[in-house]
């Protein structure tokens, strides 16, 4: 039985539902020696800001049980550099590119969205309202439905490309933020970003991260991510969902799809296994066969509760 893994989201075709997660796959070509980005559903870029950004002091990562904390701090050389240096080779490679972006304040978000809108080959924009690492960036927008909505509608006004809003799990009511983003014009919702956490070195009695706070990712967060995808899907907001959090196998990806995700993103798993996304895609295809689904799209949101 052949299985059709392609998905269409807001007019953009993704060859498979498995994409890289922002910040865990660089700009898509760093691992070209072992993985052709054109074999992925898409490449979600590392977070892009209008101006270059330095990031947080080291140590920036520490491993935890079945996961890791990071406080990279959204280091990136800015949107102009992205357009000039990274997009030409990505276009040449035939990758489907989703540009993840953020800003320090609403004006920065808007100017970044406007700049990305003009870049040929950027298929969609993913608005990061959820980064827990930066004192001024993100956190407050993603945790307050009103601010989240205002930010989405401001960015909505400057782009005709599909606009995805990426949600933070560090909230009490994920559905409230999701609804505000959709009402403000988001075409899709990505969830989840990392969970806020800290680690302590008991010998030195100092934080394990230079920034004290970091974001938890990896298999440890999968149940939380699945729960949130389920809740938002069940709320019936009428936009497609992109499931993220701790996916390391095709079975994990399928869990997200059954819970309501149309696409999934793989992050931390790539660090342990640079070709993980390809294996996950193959395993997902096997699962579709096993469940008798000719199109992966037929399985979206088919969780029985």
């Amino acid at each position, binding site marked *: 039985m052949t299985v059709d893994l392609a998905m269409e989201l807001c007019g953009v075709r993704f060859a498979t539902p498995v994409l890289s997660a922002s910040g865990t796959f660089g700009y898509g070509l*760093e691992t070209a020696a072992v993985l052709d980005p054109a074999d992925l559903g898409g490449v979600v870029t590392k977070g892009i800001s209008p101006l270059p950004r330095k990031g947080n002091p*080291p140590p920036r990562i520490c491993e935890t049980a079945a996961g890791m904390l*990071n406080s990279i701090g959204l280091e990136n050389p800015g949107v102009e550099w992205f357009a000039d240096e990274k997009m030409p080779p990505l276009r040449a490679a035939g990758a489907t590119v989703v540009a993840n972006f953020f800003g320090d304040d609403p004006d920065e978000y808007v100017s970044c969205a406007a700049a990305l809108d003009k870049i040929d080959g950027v298929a969609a924009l993913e608005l990061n309202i959820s980064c827990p690492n930066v004192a001024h960036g993100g956190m407050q927008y993603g945790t307050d439905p009103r601010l989240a909505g205002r930010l989405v509608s401001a960015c909505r006004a400057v782009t005709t490309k599909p606009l995805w809003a990426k949600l933070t799990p560090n909230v009490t009511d994920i559905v409230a933020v999701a609804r505000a983003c959709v009402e403000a014009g988001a075409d899709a919702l990505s969830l989840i970003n990392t969970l806020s956490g800290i680690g302590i070195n008991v010998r030195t009695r100092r934080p394990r991260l230079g920034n004290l706070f970091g974001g938890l990712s990896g298999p440890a967060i999968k149940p939380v991510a699945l729960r949130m995808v389920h809740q938002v899907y069940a709320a019936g907001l009428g936009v497609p969902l992109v499931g993220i959090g701790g996916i390391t196998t095709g079975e994990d990806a399928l869990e997200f799809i059954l819970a309501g995700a149309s696409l999934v993103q793989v992050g931390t798993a790539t660090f342990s296994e640079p070709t993980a996304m390809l294996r996950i895609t193959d395993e997902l295809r096997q699962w579709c066969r096993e469940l008798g689904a000719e199109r992966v799209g037929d399985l979206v949101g088919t969780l029985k509760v």
Partner: protein
Amino acid sequence: MSTTNVAFVSAQVLANEDLGADCRLLRLAVEPELDTSAVRPGQFVMVRGPWAHHPMLPRPFSVLDTADGQLEILVKVVGRGTTLIAGLHRGASVTVLGPLGRPFPPPTPGVRDLLAGGGAGIPPLYLHALRAPAGSAVELLYGGRSAADLVLVDRFAAARLSWHCCTEDGSAGSKGRVTDLLEAQLDFPGDQRVLACGPTPMLKAVASLCEARGVACWISLETEMACGIGICRGCSVAHPEGGWRCTCTDGPVFEAGEVVL
């Protein structure tokens, strides 16, 4: 860094030998997917064993040798990941990503290389000495707390390397630290440079000694790493003029002035 030679392979443990001082030597079958002839001294590989998610991330190890198309690494046990990797039996499968990172500069005719290594920092220096063309002037300086820490010295002798050692307790070689050995060598009249690998405090001492004596110095750095290949930005070290360098792709070998230790 050129990543064109980088391969991600499933490899088998061919041997696991006890070297003492909590160190094991692992020999891995990585050919043909990983071309060991492309490995340069100072480069490293990311290694992960057949366990589920704890630890989840691979661990970086310098390449010790590539004899017979196999890859050798030295594993010093310091935590959970190295305990598990050091405990792998012959026949176990691991994944190996590499070769990664910027190597040491190759030997230059007419320039003497002083290689200063402490503890488990010896592997890349050993490979540099081993690969140096016949007639190159290469001196290996090796320091540890006591004689038992000086693993691999039998190999130095077998390979007829020129080496000197020291220990803090005087149980082997001269009494003192590797910086003392180095200082004694720096009076050499000709052109020379220093390549160092070991704990960061040692690298700091070596770098400031070289700066004071006006000798070029290259160091191999260790930091936390998640990916090893430039996609996570978790391995940053500060550049003296601001900004960061990535230990995995800009390093791990840096010229001493390139990074703030």
